[in-house]
Each structure stands twice: as C-alpha cells, then as structure tokens.
C-alpha cells in the first residue's frame, strides 16, 4: 500500500482566510493511500520545508501532495525538498488551492469544498506517479546576441569577458543602434558617441566576439544548450577582407539620392555607403535598390576607383549555420509612424520633426554640423515647441496605450540643449504629465525649468496650422484653462516608441512570446525580468519594453550573467516528463512522427520472439534529448502506445475521476 503525505499550506491568510484548513486536513486523511496530513502557515519557508523533509523520513512517505499556491510558483521548490529527503522529486504533486481557489472564491464553504476536490485530484494523480530520472544534455559554450545596439553590445562584451565565445547578429550594415544616432545622453549630458564608440571598438577587437552585420536570423532549431541557428548574411557587394575603408567609393558614387537611414532622412547618401563615419565594421555596403550598376548594368565607378579591388557586384547572400548554448534577444525599438496624426502636420511640413530627427539636427556630426536650423529654409528658429505623448498613452488605434518612458527626459534634454547653446530661442514643452523617476532624473527636468527657463505647459496641442513661414500651434494650458496660440518656427514631436516590426516574427522563430504591443514577454514581471519562457533565451533592452540607456545596460548585463551561468555548465538536466513508447503495443503506423514539432520521434526495427518465431517489426522511438514533452503524439497514437511521463493517460483520467466524484 502506498504511503502518501498531504501538506496543506495556509499561506498566512491567503489560503486560510477562505479555506477551512482543518476540514481539508480531515478530508485528506480519508483519501485512499494517504497516511499523513498536516498543515503549516508557510510551507515554502525553511521551517515548512523542514517539516516536509522530516515527515517524509519519519513517516516513510513514498509520495507527497502539497496543497498550496500554483505549481508554477513552488513546484520546483518542493521537488527539491523531496530530493533532499531522499524521495524522487517527481513523486511530488501540487494542488493549487490559492490561485485557483482561495483567491477566487469568497464563500468559505464553497472554497473549502473546492480545495478538498483539488487535493483529492492531486492525491489520485500522485498515486500513479513513478520515479523519474532526468537525462543530461551537453551545452554548446557559445552565445548568440541578436541585435547590435547598446543592449547587444553590452551583453556581448560581458559574455566575452567571462571567457565565452559570442556572435552578434545585426540587421543593418553597422552595429551601434539608436544610441549611435543620439547626440547627448541624459541626465549627465555627456556625448553619446564618446561613450558608445569605444565600446563598439572593444566589441570589434575582442577575440571572443564575432560580428555578423547586414545579417538576419532565418531559423532556429534545437533547445536550451543546443540551439542551431541559421542566419542569412545579405550580400554586401564589398569584400570585407579586402576593403581598407578609405571611403573613395562613397565619394565617387554618382547615385547620391538615397535617404540616409542613420540621419533619419535629413541627409542623402550615396548608393554605396557606410552608415556613419564610426561604423563598425568600417566597410561600405551597396544599396542595390539605389545603385545604378544594379539598376541599369552601367556604371561600376566604385569598382574602378577602389584601390583594394574590394567591390564584388556578384556577391550573393550566404547562409551561415552555427550552434549556440544561449541566445540573447536585443533587437531594440522603433518609433511609430506619424502619418495618422494629421493634426500635427508632420507629413506636410518640414519643420515639424520627430525627436530622433532633432537628435541629428543638434549632433555635431549631423547634417547641419550641430547648428540648429529649420529643415525647410535653414534659418535659425526663434521659437521651438515640443509636444510630448504623441501616440503614447493613447487608447485609439493610431497610438500605443503605454507610456514610452524616455520622452519626458529626452524632451527636457532637447529643450535644455537649445537654451544652453542659444539663450535667445524660446522653448515650450506641452506635456500631459512629467514622469521622471530615476537617479538624478527629476532634478534634471527641474533644472530645465528653473535654470534654463524652458516653458512647461501642462496640456496638449490640438492642431498645428502651417502659417506662412511660421507654424501656428494651438494648445491649451489645462491648469488655468487658457487656450494658447504660439507662432513657432519649429515643432518637435515625441513620437511613441514601439516594438520592432519584425519582433513578432522573430518571437515565432524563437518560440518566445510577445505581448499585445509586440514587446517580448519576460518569464516573470518581477522575479525573472531577463528570462523568457523558453529556457536558454534571454532578453535585453527595449525589445522587452520601453527603456532608457542606463536601464538597458543594466538589463543587458543581467542577461549576460544569465547566459554565462548557462554556458558555464558542462551538462544540463533534461525535463524527464517526455514521451515514451510501449514497444509491445506500438503498431508501427508512425502517425506520431508526423505531428512531432521537434522531429523527436523516429522509427526503429525491433526483433522479437513470437512463440518461438523470431520476427522483425517497425516501432516508433523517442529521442530523449529532442522531446520537449508536449504530448501531442499521445493523442495521435491509435493503439495508445505512446504515453507521456508525469502526465500519463492514467494519471489524467484519475484526476478527472477524482474531480467528478
């Protein structure tokens, strides 16, 4: 006869407040196989765990049910406890009487009844549990970082410093990301390039780091410790080995009408181009859509002038497949398109710009050499209006419901930079709320108001009317209830941040989930902020939600630490709850092989003795390393030969029966 122990947790008043623990204990004592039932205030505490441990030994328990919070919370904890007590960890089941019971129901009698039913189901299931032993898998000690912005750069440097190989895959021709475009950084106003470019150089020279620019992730196979990643390196049309980065080709290129992505379209670039002078790698790329040679077959001037003979028009995309133990996703963010915000006249007036465009306009390396002028007529503006929350905190389909988090700070920065350099320019900031939590952040914003004389107006802008050379801004001061008209020369819009267009698609390739805004979902909003639900894949930076640079860097180092922790292991423990074929029953139809998402089921031939006659037969076989334990095959199996350990047919039916009693 089995010896099952039931432990009921009060969780303080969380459970005991609505569930009559005594009654649950009494009922559990009557359940078949149960020899011991006991309660405690906090079962997950050290004292509670000791109670479980000691009881297992004293009562010689061979199975344990913990009635407590969700197994997603503490199943792992109690399995460990059992293991310490010498019991196989898979002989533990958790009955969820908190999230699924005491927190839902207010009627004590009802809740108690349900708690008993849930405990009964767990007891019925655990009675059929078997000891499971987890297998081991090796770990490829190399990490992949997707995205070469500041998040990816920091992650890669940290992992490389720990002594592991890292590859960075970056979509654009150079690493650097959004931070490379930015002029100054808040709240210290140090120059962005001055702190970023040294890190970019570190990345490019680190012996453990490999950079794949102009490359995209194509598909991902495998699992934690053993990801197999295929990427597509787009044809650069320039030989990376031969190119010496002299820049003659970009100078001579006759096609100079393409909009520079790096300059946010404020300047044109040639068809063969390096995005910006500090680009890494410092090797140009030919934009085939703009290149005359590719469009008409004539030209090839770059090839003629290249002193190194590095131009290769015939280059083709190459596929690279490599194995990685861990993956860090750091693809960053974008800002929303403003074509739906017609009232701000962004699409039909050049002097209405986004904040990112403003960064380029004030940047010493930007299209105006850092001189603040209106894009339309290159005159110095006299009045600049900033509008915050353009599309942020917006419930309509044209905006985003969340706060973009960085705009309050960068707008204060922009206004401050203007007032610092040109005290004669008036600046106005329209805001809904100023949100500046963060070290030295609010002080920064107050400085803009108090020392730099930036006019903050609580209220929004209704419409911007182009009015000759001026922009007539109609706003409101919500505090006094005055409507406001400003004849501005320039308007800067703080457009909402958004997830990258391809985030969802990438998420699908990696089997990690995205939220309703297409930001990647962390495994736990508080306690697992850099992990995803997929083991071995971590998140860094703004692809998980809007973030500023300090936060991004902190998370990047966090993700790196997690990846290092994983890579430092020689072996990983497998999930033992995987499929198993009963060869005696298997008919060899192999229906299961077709539905397995991991190609974990193959066939094999077995010989067996049929009343003295030796015959051969095809049966299915499960690859223990590949199977992830979804259980889809068990349903496809007509004879019922495949079952999944930990969730066997018998176990689930026992639960059904127990619940329906």
């Amino acid at each position, binding site marked *: 006869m089995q010896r099952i122990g039931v432990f009921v947790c009060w969780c303080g008043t969380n459970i005991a407040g609505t569930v009559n623990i005594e009654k649950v204990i009494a009922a559990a004592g009557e359940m078949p196989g149960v020899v011991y039932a006991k309660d405690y205030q906090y079962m997950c505490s050290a004292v509670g765990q000791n109670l479980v441990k000691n009881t297992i030994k004293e009562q010689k328990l061979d199975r344990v049910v913990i009635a407590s919070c969700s197994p997603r919370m503490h199943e792992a904890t109690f399995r460990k406890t059992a293991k310490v007590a010498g019991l196989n960890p898979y002989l533990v089941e958790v009955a969820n009487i908190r999230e699924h019971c005491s927190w839902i129901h207010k009627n004590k009698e009802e809740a108690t009844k349900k708690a008993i039913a849930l405990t009964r189901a767990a007891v019925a299931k655990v009675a059929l549990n078997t000891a499971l032993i987890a297998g081991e898998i090796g770990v490829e000690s190399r990490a992949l970082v997707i995205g070469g912005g500041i998040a990816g750069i920091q992650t890669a440097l940290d992992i490389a410093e720990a002594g592991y190989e890292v590859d960075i895959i970056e979509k654009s021709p150079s690493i650097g990301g959004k931070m490379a475009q930015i002029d100054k950084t808040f709240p210290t106003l140090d120059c962005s390039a001055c702190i970023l470019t040294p890190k970019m150089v570190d990345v490019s020279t680190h012996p453990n780091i490999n950079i794949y620019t102009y490359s995209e992730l194509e598909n991902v196979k495998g699992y934690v410790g053993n990801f197999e990643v295929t990427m597509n390196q787009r044809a650069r049309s320039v030989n990376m080995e031969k190119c010496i980065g002299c820049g003659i080709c970009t100078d001579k290129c006759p096609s100079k009408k393409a909009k520079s992505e790096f300059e946010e379209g404020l300047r044109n670039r040639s068809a063969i181009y390096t995005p910006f002078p500090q680009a890494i790698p410092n090797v140009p790329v030919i934009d085939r859509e703009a290149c005359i040679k590719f469009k008409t077959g004539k030209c090839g001037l770059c090839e003629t002038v290249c002193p190194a003979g590095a131009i290769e028009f015939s280059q083709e995309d190459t596929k690279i497949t490599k194995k990685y133990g861990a993956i860090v996703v750091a693809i960053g963010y974008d800002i929303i398109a403003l074509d739906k915000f017609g*009232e701000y006249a962004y699409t039909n007036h050049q002097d209405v710009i986004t904040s990112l465009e403003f960064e380029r306009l004030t940047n010493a390396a930007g299209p105006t050499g850092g001189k603040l002028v209106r894009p339309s007529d290159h005159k110095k503006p006299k009045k600049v209006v900033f509008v915050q*929350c353009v*599309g942020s*905190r*917006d*419930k*309509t389909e044209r*905006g985003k419901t969340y706060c973009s988090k960085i705009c309050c700070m960068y707008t204060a920065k922009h206004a401050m930079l203007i007032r610092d350099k040109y005290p004669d320019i008036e600046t106005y900031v329209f805001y*809904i*709320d100023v949100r500046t939590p963060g070290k030295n952040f609010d002080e920064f914003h107050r400085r803009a108001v108090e020392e730099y004389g930036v006019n903050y107006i*609580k*209220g*929004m*802008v*209704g*419409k911007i009317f182009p009015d000759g050379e001026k922009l007539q801004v*109609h*706003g*409101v*001061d*919500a505090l006094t*209830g005055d*409507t*406001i008209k400003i004849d501005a020369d320039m308007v800067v819009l703080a457009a909402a941040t958004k997830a990258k267009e391809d985030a969802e698609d990438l998420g699908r390739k990696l089997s990690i989930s995205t939220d309703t805004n297409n930001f990647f979902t962390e495994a736990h909003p508080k306690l697992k902020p850099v992990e995803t639900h997929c083991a071995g894949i971590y998140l860094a930076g703004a692809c998980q939600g809007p973030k500023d640079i300090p936060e991004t860097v902190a998370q990047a180092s966090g993700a790196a630490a997690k990846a290092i922790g994983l890579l430092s292991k020689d072996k990983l423990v497998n999930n033992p709850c995987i499929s198993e074929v009963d060869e005696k029953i298997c008919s060899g139809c192999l229906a299961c092989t077709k539905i397995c998402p991991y190609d974990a089921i193959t066939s094999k031939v077995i010989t067996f003795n049929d009343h003295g006659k030796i015959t051969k037969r095809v049966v299915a076989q499960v690859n223990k390393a590949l199977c992830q334990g979804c259980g889809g095959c068990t349903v496809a199996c007509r004879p019922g030969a495949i079952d999944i350990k930990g969730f066997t047919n018998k176990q689930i039916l026992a639960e059904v029966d127990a619940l329906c009693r």
Partner: protein
Amino acid sequence: MTRVKVIPENKKNIIDKIIEMSGENIRDCMQCGKCSAGCPASDGMDLLPHQVIRLLQLGQIDRIVESKSIWNCASCFTCAQRCPRNIDIANIMEAIRLTIIRCVGNSRLKADDVPSKVDCKMPQQAIVSGFRKYNK
C-alpha cells in the same frame, strides 16, 4: 472658493444617467486637454471641454449646467477625432444637453422664437438641427 465634495451623493444618479446616455467612460479621461486645444468653438466657452469632463468626474454637475459651453459645442467631432483616450466628447456634451432640455419646459429653443432667428437664406438643415439639438 468653497470646499466641494467629490461626487456628492445627490448627484450620483444624474451622472450615471449622463454616462449611460453618452455611452462614454469619463474615467478614461486623463486631462490632457487635447479636446480643448483643438476645439474650434472654444473662443466663447467659459468651461473648456476638458474642464467639463473633469467636473463630471468630480460630480460637479451644477457648474456644467450653468455654463454656456455645452451650448457652444457645435458637434463638429474634432475633439472625438483626436482624443487619445477614445472618448467621444461630443456624445457627452449631447448627453448633458439632453438631461437639461428633456425636463418639461426646459427647451432652449422655443418654436415661437424661431421666426425671429431665421432669415430667408437660412437652410432648412440649420432649423431642423437647431430644433433637434435645443428642443424636446
């Protein structure tokens, strides 16, 4: 200035009625003022649209009823078109107007007054609209 009570007990019913009639959730409003900033009829208003919503949120219905703003609203839907919180402010204005004019004798535009307000060029559309908006 006198101290006011937030959502006075005796105003709860009428506010609920206004919310129901308008079909809008006034709690969505975060007072950004975009409606007021763009309102083409704001010139003659003593309360701006966002202030009307704020007073509704606080239950100060009397101050709204006394104001001329609700009658200045031309239902042009500029505010509704741009509201980042998806509130159709025109619906709320209408609901407030209706709670007033639906009381017997409260019509703002009396049939007898119409001839004096109309000239020979005024389109029927204006008269019918005026009646629908100001008379019950």
